[in-house]
């Protein structure tokens, strides 16, 4: 996938080239600056600064209630579905602040796919699940949709398992397969980033393994941010890891460093299982 995207920022036009093999590693997808978030009076995210790079898997770990899921949902502004949410600070997605007034959430979410904790296919056929995104965004051509569906299911490594039952209800397959269908559904609009909110927490070990392998595969084309409560998982699949505690980023570094040589005592306590 090598496309040229034109984005507008403060009236200026900026050219942005994706998947440029020489500089991709250093390119920033999400640059979070001084982000604060409140649920009513509850200060859930405090002064978050986080720079997330392209074509990497970034894991976010931390005990429950630390704000890791909230942060993930802020990245595509899903968090705003909760009434009484307030934010301050900014998150630059590809250089543009996602909280800008004229930045439509739909536009942002078209660029940023999301996979949820529990597999949540729509109660429709597998085909219609995958075609949902392209269709709502105006792609109606049957032939193109067929191609997108196949490509997405292949991309999610589930094509061979479901190709003969595309028109069956998506709930007729196993939980692990449902989750890969949900990943395929997210892939169907060829997003730039995929957010994953504990995608394997409801799955058995074998399905979990398949999803983890898939994540490794997907990072070639996508930038992936994954929230997980499973530290081994973070260690296995991510390039960078951020450790959240009580709404703050305690430490953010290369995954190897975090797990072998954390600089903060609290990180060390958490990864060695002393709390959480």
């Amino acid at each position: 996938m090598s496309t040229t995207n034109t984005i507008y920022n403060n009236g200026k036009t900026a050219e942005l080239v994706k998947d440029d093999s020489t500089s991709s590693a250093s390119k920033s997808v999400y640059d979070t600056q001084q982000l604060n978030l409140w649920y009513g009076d509850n200060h859930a995210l405090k002064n978050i600064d986080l720079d997330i790079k392209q074509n990497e898997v970034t894991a976010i770990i931390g005990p429950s209630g630390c704000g890791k899921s909230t942060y993930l949902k802020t990245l595509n502004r899903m968090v705003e579905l909760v009434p009484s949410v307030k934010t301050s600070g900014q998150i630059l997605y590809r250089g543009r602040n996602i909280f800008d007034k004229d930045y439509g959430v739909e536009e942002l979410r078209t660029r940023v796919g999301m996979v949820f904790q529990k597999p949540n296919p729509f109660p429709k056929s597998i085909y219609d699940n995958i075609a949902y995104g392209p269709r709502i965004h105006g792609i109606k051509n049957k032939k193109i949709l067929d191609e997108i569906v196949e490509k997405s299911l292949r991309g999610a490594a589930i094509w061979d398992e479901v190709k003969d039952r595309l028109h069956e209800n998506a709930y007729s397959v196993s939980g692990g397969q449902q989750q890969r269908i949900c990943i395929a559904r997210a892939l169907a609009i060829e997003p730039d980033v995929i957010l994953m909110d504990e995608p394997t927490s409801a799955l058995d070990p074998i399905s979990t393994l398949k999803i983890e392998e898939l994540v490794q595969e997907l990072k070639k084309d996508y930038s992936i941010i994954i929230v997980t409560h499973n530290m081994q998982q973070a260690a296995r699949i991510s390039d960078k890891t951020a450790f959240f505690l009580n709404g703050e980023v305690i430490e953010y570094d290369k995954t190897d460093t975090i797990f072998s040589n954390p600089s903060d005592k609290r990180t060390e306590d958490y990864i060695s299982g002393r709390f959480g």
Partner: protein
Amino acid sequence: MRYIEHDNVVRRMNGRNLVNKLFKSIFLLATLSALLALVILLYQIVSQGVNHLSFDFLVNYASRFPEQAGIKAALVGSIWLMLVVAPTSIILGVGSAIYLEEYAGKNRITTFIQMNISNLAGVPSVVFGLLGLTIFVRALALGNSVLAAGFTMSLLILPVIIVASQEAIRSVPGELRDASYGMGATKWQTIVKIILPAAIPGILTGSILALSRAIGETAPLIVVGIPVIIQFLPKGVMDTFTALPMQIYDWSSRPQPEFQQVAAAGIIVLMVVLLLMNSVAVIIRNKFEKRY
């Protein structure tokens, strides 16, 4: 010293168990008496009406002579009434439910609308008749037409449809909404493509039950002035008409005992219509068993 003598407890237990059994039987009898009432009611009506039931009864107009009296005008009239009530009440009811569940903020206006709906559900149907008489029949000059009666009935069953639709919409899992929004779908796209399809069985079941209430309601029709003796069929929604319960009411209140049988036959027709509607509701409920 011990406060509870085990032997005493055991001795008293027999009595307590007896009381338990006695009351269990009393409660069961009370429950069965409701069932008995239903059986007697159905038996009475069928035994009185079955003799008068025939094909002629369905295709004849009302008559002064009991043996010639038929239900054609009322049956067709009730169908006409439903043709107005069903779309009106379902559009208004589902629309209101979508607004309340998906758009309305948690504020005083919403609370007020919600409270208003539950109060409206408690207003006697005869009072809705007075509303229909004043607003639709007279102020809007619709006369005693299918339209005037249909609008009146629609408002009468509106609260039922709103509440049923709200429940159906509320029972759609939040994860489906999240998934749709996560794909960049707008709110209305999410409602039309995800929420309504998932809620449709509940909405339809509730709507059919509400419509079957409307088809059996008599009082509002009497108050808006729907006539009984009609020897023609309505050709449009502005025509006057009569309906099944009106016809049954008229036959029931006549002094000749023969008309009691005609009334019973009319009731059988009405109950069969209701039975058909309710079976459709049950079939829908079973067919769209929840899959998430």
